[in-house]
Each structure stands twice: as C-alpha cells, then as structure tokens.
C-alpha cells in the first residue's frame, strides 16, 4: 500500500516539471506563436538555476534565475519571429540547439559542484494521514503552486479581459489589430511568459528533481512538454492531467521493473509522442474540433497593415 502512495508521490513530482513547461508553452501558443526552443530554454535555465543555487543556497532565487534566463532567451526568439518575421519553426529549432550548446559551455565548471542538504517538505497535520499523507502532502511547494497556477491560468484565459485579448491575438491577429490592440507586443509578452515558465521548469530539474548539473540533463523533457500542449488541445487543465499521465507512465515502468515485471521502457519512451500524434489525427479530421481546440493563427506570421 505504501509503495503505491510513494508511486503517486513520485508521479506528481515527475509530472510537475512537464506541467510547468507545458503551461508556459500553452500561453505563448495561445498567442499564436510556436516556440520549439523549449528544450534549449530549459537547459539554459537549468544551469542558471543550478549556478544560482550553488552561489546563494536559495532554491527560490534559483527559480527566479531560471525564469529570467528562460525569459531572456524567449525574448530574443520573440524579437526574431515577431518583428523580423523569421520562420517560427526554424528559429525555435535554432534556439533549442543554441541552448543545448550554450548551457554545456557555461556549465563546464559546475559539473562537479554540489548543492547543500536538500530540505524535506511536509504539510503539518495532513502529511501524517495514512496513504494520502505520503502520497500527496510531502511534496516540494512547487508541486502545489503548479496546481494553483493552472487554476489561475484557466481563470485568466477564459474569465478575464486580458485573457480574451490574448486568445483573440492567437485566433485572429488581424481583428485584434483592427480593434487597436498591440498584437506584436502582446505576442512578445506571451512568448516571454512561456520562456519564463520553461525556465522555472528547467531550474526545478537541476535544483529539486535531480539536484546536479550535467550537460543535456533535461533529456527530452522540453520536447515532451511541447507535445503535451497539443496532446492537451491547448487547455490548462488537460495539460496538468497529461503531465501527470506522462510522468506516471515513466515512474510506473521503473516501479514495475523493480517488482520484476518485464516491460519495455523503450516502448514507453515513445508513448507521449504516439499519444500526441493520435490526438493530432483525431482533431485534424474534424474542422469543428480544430476550430474549438486549436488557436487558429498558431504558427502563422502577422504583418500589421498588410
């Protein structure tokens, strides 16, 4: 019984990384911009966060540094694709490759650094409840903040005026422009928010999840987060569920192996992408589903006044 509680706890932890990055990417995709640079932004943020944690000893400053690093990279990407109208996909790929190399380069001397003792977290009272306590209430605060953030983002997108404007920019930038909204600036802010959240996710990996730095340590989680936004059909709540699902599959396969059940981990590694393609096929076959689920101007450049 306890084992299942711990499996659940590990799933929440693994899913949180994907959820933070996925929610960030959702924000910039809702504004109509696809940023394939998630992996690179997360790597640069991971080293920025790790270095900050080593120097200051503060996890929260590390998250801040990760967010800043992600936002700066996303900002550069934003200027390129929004004002200079470079191809979003090619620029995103370049950002990803750049981040991969750049993080390795600046991180050379941090490979052998270590963080101090990692704190344990427990919510007083609740964490002592049998089963539920160890499963749900002994997590890093970021796990709970992510759930709160998902709720806040849902409210923002569907209940607030600013959220409506953001969605309008992603659906029809021409109309938003005609109404007098600064489409390019809104898109840049959205892209930078996305970068900042990817950055927090990257710092979470190097500071909390696997507290060390080695090059390439994000190991594909950025790509899974990108797939996740599509898998979740651009809905915050589904992103959270999808993240726990993908995180759970990873942890479950290790758990089963430990129990001596033979299962191919290679197959499970493919699953997030297979699931994403399945969702793409499903929604793409139906024009109504596309319209209700996908930002209509996703990935398309916008030329004001043309």
């Amino acid at each position, binding site marked *: 019984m306890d*084992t299942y509680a711990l499996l659940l706890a*590990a799933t929440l932890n693994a899913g949180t990384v994907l959820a933070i990055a996925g929610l960030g990417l959702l924000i910039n995709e809702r504004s109509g911009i696809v940023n394939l640079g998630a992996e690179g932004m997360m790597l640069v943020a991971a080293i920025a966060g790790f270095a900050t944690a080593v120097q200051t000893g503060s996890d929260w400053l590390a998250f801040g540094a990760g967010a800043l690093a992600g936002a700066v990279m996303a900002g550069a990407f934003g200027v390129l694709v929004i004002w200079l109208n470079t191809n979003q996909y090619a620029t995103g790929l370049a950002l990803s490759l750049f981040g991969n190399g750049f993080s390795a380069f600046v991180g050379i001397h941090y490979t052998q650094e270590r963080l101090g003792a990692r704190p344990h977290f427990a919510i007083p009272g609740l964490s002592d409840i049998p089963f539920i306590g160890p499963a749900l209430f002994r997590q890093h605060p970021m796990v709970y903040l992510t759930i709160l953030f998902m709720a806040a983002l849902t409210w923002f997108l569907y209940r607030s005026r600013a959220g409506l404007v953001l969605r309008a920019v992603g659906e029809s930038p021409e109309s938003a422009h005609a109404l007098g909204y600064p489409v390019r600036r809104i898109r840049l802010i959205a892209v930078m928010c996305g970068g900042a959240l990817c950055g927090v996710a990257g710092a979470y990996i190097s500071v909390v999840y696997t507290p060390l730095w080695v090059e390439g*340590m994000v190991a594909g989680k950025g790509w899974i987060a990108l797939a996740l936004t599509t898998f979740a059909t651009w809905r915050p709540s589904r992103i959270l569920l999808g993240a726990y699902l993908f995180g759970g599959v990873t942890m479950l396969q290790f758990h089963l192996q430990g129990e001596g059940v033979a299962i191919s981990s290679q197959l499970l590694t493919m699953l997030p992408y297979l699931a994403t393609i399945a969702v793409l096929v499903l929604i793409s076959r139906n024009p109504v589903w596309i319209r209700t689920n996908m930002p209509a101007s996703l990935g398309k450049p916008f030329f004001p006044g043309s």
Partner: protein
Amino acid sequence: MTTTTRRALLRVTALGSVAMAAALVGCSKKEEAAPAAAPAASEPVAASAAAAPASGASAPLKIAFAYLGPVGDGGWTFAHDNGRKALEKELGSQVQTSFVESVPESADAERVFRDMVAQGNTLIFGTSFGYMEPMLKVAADNKNVHFEHATGYKTADNMRVYDNRTYEGAYMAGVIAGGMTKTNTIGVVGSIPIPEVIRNIDSYTLGAQSVNPKVKVKVVWVNEWFNPPKETEGAQSLIDGGADVLLQNTDSSAVLQTAEKNGKYAFGWDSDMTAYGPKAHLASAVNIWGPYYIKAAKDAINGTWTTGHTWWGVKEGAIDLVSISDKVPADLKAKVDKVKAGLKDGTFAIWRGPIVDNGGKEQVKAGTTADDAFLGGIKFFVKGVEGQVPGAK
C-alpha cells in the same frame, strides 16, 4: 482555412521530429570542436616535429582517448581521464595525449576515430562497449595504428581488448550492503543489460548473500549509461519499493544523491564519490585505469604491442573498494579486507559453485570455479535477484 490549418499542424509534427534528429546531430557536432581544441594546445610540439623530421626519433607517441561521457561525470569517464593523467605523469615527454568527450555509441564514433587517426595518433583508446564495431572498421583501414577497446570482445591484429573486473568491486560493495540493509532489500540501477552489467548485479548479490542469506535484490534498467534524471527516477522507485542500500552501474552520481536525499545508503561507482553524498556514501568501487594505460603505451613505444584480451582486477591494482564509511561496522570492514586479500593472492574466487540462477537452475557446479569465458557471457540473474534479464527467453 481548414486545409491550411491542417497543413500547419502537420508541419509542427514534422518539424518536431526533425528537431529531435537535429538535436541529436547537434550533440555530436559539439564534440567535433573538442578534438580541434585539444591538440591545439600541443600544436607547437607537432609543428616542430614536422619541421624537423630528422629528430623524429624522439617524437612523442601520440595517444588519443574517446570518452563516452563528459570528463566531469565524476564516474566512468572521470576514472578513465584519471588513467590518462597517470599515463602522462609516468611517461612524460614520451607521450602526447588528447581526448574527445561525449562520443556517442553510433556511426559518429567512427568519424571520431578516423579524425584521431588523421591527426597522427598511433595509439587510440575507445572507452566504451558501443565503440566496438566502429573501431573494428577503422582498425581494418589503418594497420599501422594500435587500437585499444574497453569492455568489448572482438579483436583484430591491431585492435585488442582491455577491461577491469568491475564485478570484484561490486562483490565487495555487496558484502557491505548485505550487512547494512535493515529491510533485507537492496537495489541496483542498471544501465544496459549486457553481460558486464548483469555480472556486476549478480556479484553484488553474491556478496550481500555471503553475509546475509535473506537479502533480496531489486533491479531497474534505465537503458542508458548516462542520464541523471532517469537514474534519479530509477533510484527513487527502488527506494519507494523498500530498497535501503543502492548500487548503480550507470555513470553519474545521481543514484547516490537520490539516496542521500531519502536518507538511505548507496555506493560510489567507477570513481570515489564520497563528496556527492557524504551521509549516504558507504564506499566506492573504483576503476584504476592508470596501470593498464601505462603498460599499453610502453608496449607501443617498445614495439612489443600484440593483440589480445586483458582483464585486470584487484590483483593487478585495477579495482578497489575505497573510502569505506565510518558507519560500516568493523567486522564488515574486516570481511571486505579478507575478500580483497583473497582476490589479491588468488585464494578466493567470487564465482565458485554452487551458484544457482533465479529460475532454480544450477549454473556453476559445486567445487568448480567459473572461467573467464563463462563470466564473459553471463545472461542470467543469480538466485536472490528479482525479475528477469530483459530480452531473456
């Protein structure tokens, strides 16, 4: 409208997969810079040798190393690089070494080996199992270059194999694990299910059983040599499943750090990892490659290099269990010392029968000792390990 959107979606998917491929290519591109940078430092030497070929007799032997991970992994590659440094220290100006880090076990490795040959290296070390085929190919085209392949089994006239008996370190770690576990469950984070790794898991188990017959061993595979987040996840799942002493056959310190975080015990592997988890660290099973690298370079310099298969262990000073923690009681330490002494003078053998696999079949008969050929092809878990070897029929 609909068609364009659909096309855009397809483009996302297609570009996504291109991105993955590009990311992989990107990794290898980075390494290309390394060989260019490494010899750059020693260029004056090479240049003067080229300018004055008459004095070529004293030209240093150019030696190149291909590493699987970054030198800073604190584990497998770090140990090899320590060996390289020991070699430079011992032979001084007689040798000139360079290395390339993070060489993938793919067709890229072949390109790296060809680069090394083109740069004038005449002794080349490939420090991972997966370099076997690429190295064999390059060796066939460059008969005047000596190739040394770690942990493989294929040789050629100018390519030989060297390895360490890492399972001796695993056995000694097992002795400590068996004595320290409170749950009678210990765990291993395995990398890739090849005989070398299976042999280590088995030896760890045999070591633990030598002091604690009740001990059970759980295994998870991450199917990679170096992926810290996966190693962390694997270690966490073992701990969640009740294991309280962990060993890893992967290349980073992530498992030790996970044990530290959870208040459990673990070992250092390949290199001394005490510093990565001072509370969790029980001991480190280390590889000491220096003596072999020195011998190989001397063979090449003296013209006595011949092909073959070298497998060194505690006896030759290539394997040791170091930095045993103060938490380990004296009687356990004494048992480890006894094993070490026995391995050194040949009075003790780890793989002495009867040894039964976890399906109940006797693999090594009572009174006999498994030979190296048997050890080289192990594909079974001994009794006490849970689960099956992946892919085993």
